[in-house]
């Protein structure tokens, strides 16, 4: 196994008296899809928030390519190449689909302040936005307002924006939720393809998709890691079956 690109070491997050995440360690390897599953309230989204910098961990550390991320500034982590797609769609509702993706591409390619050349004259940014829209399947809606998209399409846009930042690490929080079955399988296939180039952390409730595309699965219950391993190992794990898969099956 190659050197992990993103590593969480004994991460913990308390909200008041509630320990939402407890002592979670996790390695994300390049070109691999690492799924995190678990019942509602298991702390999956909180874990993503800790890795993306949306939240600052109470305990534990995060390393990017072996270097500790200190301060956990959201924008700094993003500039390192860690992109995030939110579970609750978090887009620029009043802007066009293209502008949503263009801003994301601008964040990657021109993170400094550029005052004079027109934004639309940056061809490379436009192209990166276009590629991301095409990948996520929203290019036909490029000129529409993001708020006019259906819920499922907004989920695709959310993914397109993450892709437009050309990340090395992709944190996906239930990317398939709210999509029609056809789109869901298309996006699942896309995620599987992206996994050939990127390190992906996938939180998802669609178990078929997870077991199909993930190389590693971590099961969380009550904020802590219950088990971690290959899909086969997880499927065979008695504790996992008792705690989680059993309910769904």
């Amino acid at each position: 196994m190659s050197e992990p690109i993103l590593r969480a070491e004994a991460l913990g997050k308390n909200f008041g008296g509630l320990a939402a995440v407890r002592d979670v360690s996790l390695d994300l390897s390049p070109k691999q899809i690492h799924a995190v599953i678990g019942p509602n309230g298991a702390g999956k989204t909180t874990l993503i928030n800790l890795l993306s910098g949306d939240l600052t961990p109470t305990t534990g550390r995060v390393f990017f390519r072996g270097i500790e991320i200190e301060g956990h500034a959201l924008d700094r982590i993003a500039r390192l190449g860690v992109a995030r797609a939110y579970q609750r769609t978090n887009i620029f509702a009043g802007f066009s689909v293209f502008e949503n993706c263009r801003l994301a591409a601008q964040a990657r390619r021109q993170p400094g302040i550029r005052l004079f050349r027109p934004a639309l004259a940056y061809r490379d940014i436009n192209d990166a936005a276009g590629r991301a829209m095409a990948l996520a399947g929203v290019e036909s809606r490029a000129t529409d307002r993001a708020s006019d998209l259906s819920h499922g399409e907004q989920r695709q846009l959310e993914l397109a924006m993450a892709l437009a930042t050309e990340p090395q690490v992709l944190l996906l929080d239930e990317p398939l939720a709210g999509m029609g079955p056809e789109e869901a399988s298309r996006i699942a296939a896309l995620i599987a393809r992206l996994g050939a180039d990127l390190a992906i952390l996938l939180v998802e409730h669609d178990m078929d998709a997870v077991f199909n595309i993930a190389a590693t699965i971590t099961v969380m219950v009550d904020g802590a890691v219950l088990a971690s391993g290959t899909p086969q190992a997880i499927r065979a794990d008695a504790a996992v079956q008792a705690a989680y898969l059993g309910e769904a099956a």
Partner: protein
Amino acid sequence: MSARLRPALLGLGLIVLIALPLVAGKFGLDLAARIMIMAIFAMSLDLLVGFAGMVSLGHAAFFGVGAYALYLLSPQYGAASLLVSLPVAIAAAALAALVIGLLVLRSSGVYFIMVTLAFGEMFYYYATGARWLGGSDGAYVYQRPSAGPVDLGQGHAFYYLVLIALAATYALLRVILRAPFGHALRGIRSNEHRMRSLGFAAPRYKLLAFVIAGALAGLAGYFDAAQFGVVNPELFGWRLSGSVLMMVILGGMGTLDGAIIGAAVLVLLENFLGDLTTHWLLPMGLFIVAAVLLLPQGLTDPAALWRAMRERSRV
């Protein structure tokens, strides 16, 4: 406004302003200059309010810094050098905005409004007590600045310099709003958290917008002091901050043309209502209430104007 109509109207407005000295008398030109100065001020605030989503109630602080800079740079009974005093006034306002911006940009929303208001009032109260600034009575700028053959006290030099400043301000803001910077500002206004999560260092963008807006407000204040030949603490005060915010809202936030129109409408109303009645604030207030109710998008939104008229005619 439609894509074709706007450049046509802008060009027409520019031609009218260039030709105005041929037909208008002193009163008309002074009034036009006043409108243009307030338009520069309103556009500077619109950069913050309309594009970056930062509602400042202390923007007059920078206007006042520009005005007082001219006073301080003018020899007692002589004229300041235009080439020195103008850039220094702008730089002083920019510096003030940088320092205040570093402090106020830690807050947002209602808190931002209150904190900017508080800073404006600090400047106001400081100026009322500071003898070197003329105290609460203010001080005179006896002569308008000049530079070689250009004397702002002579002929139409002042009027045309203000016109050039207006055009330059408009052009500058258009350029930066079309650049990645302007797109990022709109993104921050729409969803700052998401901008940060995409990798934008949002605080830096906001600070730069605050400094640019402060510098341009200083430019307007400089011309204000030059036009009236007097500075006083009111130039820092919340009343002026409030009226310029009103101009921006009236014209339609987030459109530079709107800021110009809002400035024109408010200055004209102030002038003519002030002539008609000493209680001019009452009809002024009524007008503003009506405008906000009927045209929530501002006076530059003709579609809304049309809708409002149609609904009226149906009643």
